[in-house]
């Protein structure tokens, strides 16, 4: 496939599937002789495809810009563009217990009711997982309920954890869980009901990064048994062009399209608004055509 000209392979986080599909469609409309191939995996699995399975990939978009920075730079890629954000929400459906009562103020009380089942994805495997933990820790501060995190964590049986957010959706749809912690974009795309959480705990706002930084958790490190500390940070999606890209130019064109008006519009419509001050990790290594988006700063 890599021998085929005018084809770019984009690996992206599962939560980006819908907007990326649309963007790819429009991109291909604009450049009819180009073919964009999309593959969705968990963010870390995307990285593993490149580092461990040696796939030849053009673009990778991750739900956490840190994944790109930790796994790919500097060996496989030179820069990471922060291009969108997201927020944590609690997704549910009509059959969820007490779904008519839940709101941004009482959600933790409802979750802690004994007949309510809730779950999140695996913090070690999925950014959505550790972000849930961070949200719980921030909630303890925000709602001023001491021990809330411990309670939320303790009340939830381990069996309610699933590796990825999609596995959680299966649990929700089968009514195995009443509430799951998930990205707002995913809830939005599934046309599901969700609880909008305050910015202080939903990890959306870059303005609140200091607040977010005040909480942390340990997740697994480079090898089994090793742990690293993960500090709270605003949710930032990263995208990069791989050094080994088969079509670096087209790849850059795709990123350009994403960052441009049309792309950003699609992102917004899918619940993933642009970052007001787009950021790049390594401006110098940026392809020329992309530099324009960051000069403004």
């Amino acid at each position: 496939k890599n021998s085929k000209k005018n084809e770019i392979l984009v690996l992206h986080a599962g939560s980006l599937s819908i907007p990326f599909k649309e963007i790819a469609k429009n991109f291909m409309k604009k450049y009819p002789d180009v073919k964009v191939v999309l593959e969705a995996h968990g963010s870390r699995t995307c990285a593993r495809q490149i580092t461990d399975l040696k796939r030849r990939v053009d673009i990778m978009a991750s739900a956490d810009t840190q994944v790109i920075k930790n796994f790919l730079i500097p060996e496989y890629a030179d820069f990471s563009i922060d291009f969108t954000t997201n927020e944590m929400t609690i997704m549910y459906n009509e059959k969820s217990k007490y779904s008519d009562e839940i709101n941004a103020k009482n959600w933790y009380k409802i979750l802690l009711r004994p007949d309510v089942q809730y779950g999140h994805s695996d913090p070690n495997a999925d950014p959505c997982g550790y972000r849930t933990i961070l949200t719980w820790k921030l909630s303890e501060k925000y709602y001023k309920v001491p021990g809330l995190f411990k309670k939320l964590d303790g009340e939830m049986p381990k069996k309610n954890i699933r590796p990825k957010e999609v596995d959680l959706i299966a649990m929700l749809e089968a009514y195995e869980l009443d509430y799951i912690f998930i990205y707002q974009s995913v809830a939005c795309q599934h046309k599901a009901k969700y609880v909008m959480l305050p910015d202080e705990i939903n990890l959306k706002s870059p303005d609140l990064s200091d607040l977010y930084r005040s909480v942390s958790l340990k997740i697994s490190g480079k090898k089994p048994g090793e742990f690293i500390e993960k500090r709270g940070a605003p949710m930032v999606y990263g995208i990069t062009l791989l050094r080994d890209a088969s079509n670096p130019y087209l790849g850059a064109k795709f990123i350009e399209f994403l960052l441009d008006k049309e792309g950003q519009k699609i992102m917004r419509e899918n619940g993933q608004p642009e970052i007001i001050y787009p950021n790049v990790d390594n401006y110098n290594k940026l392809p020329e055509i992309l530099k324009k988006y960051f000069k403004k700063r």
Partner: protein
Amino acid sequence: MKFKVIFSFLGFLLILFIGIPIVKMMISTDPSTLVLTSKEPEVYLSIFLTFRASVWATIIALITGVPLAYLLARREFWGKKIIEGLIDLPVIIPHTAAGIALLTVWGRNSLFSKATGINVIGTEISISIAMFFVSVPFLVNAAKDGFKLIDERYEKTAITLGATQCKAFFTVSLPMVKKSIISGSLMMWGRGISEFGAVIILAYHPMTAPVLIFERFQNFGLKYAIPVTVLLILISLIVFIFIRIFEDK
């Protein structure tokens, strides 16, 4: 009498166990959605692709696996048990690991690719390769067990009647274990269809039905994934029943 009742009861439990989830899934889909789904090119193309790739894998397995099964059933040789163990192995290898192992052998950096200049990854061929790897043991073992239950003297008789060993195999041994081989082929074909873990490592595109179902589920939820699944099941069921009826002829 009691015997029949108990046996029927036990069998019935099994049928319920398998049937309820499947039927439940089926009736959760209304026919009109099914019809609509079946008209989506993405859906029917991926189902055909899946069937086709698995058919290819099964054909290759018939060509290579049935002879192997025959040798394993008929001859004694050193290392036979090891080969039998090896043939069983793909069954237990976790699918992702199987995909990764295949990638190292068929991928961009493999000897094969370097020697031939061909890169099969991401093509229909690689899908067949993944399907073949995870499902060929079912065919080989079914054929082997079939051959073992056939008296070798039938072949000898054919040979005295003027058949070469080869002819004896094709005109006597093979037709006599036809049912086992058909059954094994069906199992292999079906197992290939369902494969996700290994296939997705070798080829995310073109999308096989399981990958499509997974993707739809991830992006849009069960409501969009189930009709594709039901469609896949219905078509397969028809194929299965058809072949099961045909095999008795």
